[in-house]
């Protein structure tokens, strides 16, 4: 699965709209993920997972920032996320299936806040991009 020139342009377009909402959308993505897929909470036993938690806000910002970074270096996502890839492989070891769940929730957040921006073509490009990010983050698992 390769990101076409159109995909890259679609993704950059979306992220230029949301970079000022990084913390808000990141936090909402996580909150939806924890609510919709309770098994994902098993990776955060040390967190306060209540709505509005400072930890979710901080972590949401981290996640969104990483996605923005990947979008800004979309020609070399593996390079841009190399350290994060190491972290996930060596320390975090989040099961690969969960990246799809996070991706689904991120798309839901986009659909809620920017429905007109999430045309079917952009939806397709974003989905591919999120898959690519997930693949990079799990690429060093074994």
């Amino acid at each position, binding site marked *: 699965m390769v990101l076409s020139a159109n995909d890259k342009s679609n993704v950059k377009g979306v992220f230029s709209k949301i970079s000022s909402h990084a913390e808000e959308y990141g936090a909402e993505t996580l909150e*939806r993920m924890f*609510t*919709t897929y309770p098994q994902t909470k098993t990776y955060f036993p040390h967190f306060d997972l209540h709505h509005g938690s400072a930890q979710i806000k901080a972590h949401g910002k981290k996640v969104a920032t990483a996605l923005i970074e990947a979008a800004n270096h979309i020609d070399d996502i593996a390079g841009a996320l190399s350290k994060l890839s190491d972290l996930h492989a060596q320390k975090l070891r989040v099961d690969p299936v969960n990246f799809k769940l996070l991706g*689904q*929730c991120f798309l*839901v957040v986009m659909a*809620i806040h920017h429905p007109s921006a999430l045309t*079917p073509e952009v939806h397709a490009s974003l989905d591919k991009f999120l898959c690519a990010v997930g693949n990079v983050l799990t690429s060093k698992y074994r």
Partner: protein
Amino acid sequence: MVHWSAEEKQLIASVWSKVNVEECGAEALARLLIVYPWTQRFFASFGNLSSPTAILGNPKVRAHGKKVLTSFGEAVKNLDNIKVTYAKLSELHCEKLHVDPENFRLLGDILIIVLASHFARDFTPACQFAWQKLVGVVAHALARKYH
């Protein structure tokens, strides 16, 4: 049997009552074919699926999308009996249509995104949970009679 809390049932019914089945169904199926183009393999007889514009404007896609989402309404009406409700459809999808059940999961996820885009903030996390659970149950029921 799947257990639905009173709140889940209410969230599902409340969203469903406001869904335009024809529009939502058409959009969900079109997005499935656009976002996951390999799903077009089941629709060779639908004519022009060569671009997102073609897919979105394709009358067969619209009609079929409406049919699929109308059928989904049966699950909403029979939450406590989804397995039985879809038994025959499950057999059909296996024996006649030869559809990999993974496609039911893909369509379910797409439907969630379509609902989110229409309901915006009203599509709360609790709502998303209930609906994600529902699409999962429907997918499971449709796969149940596979052999």
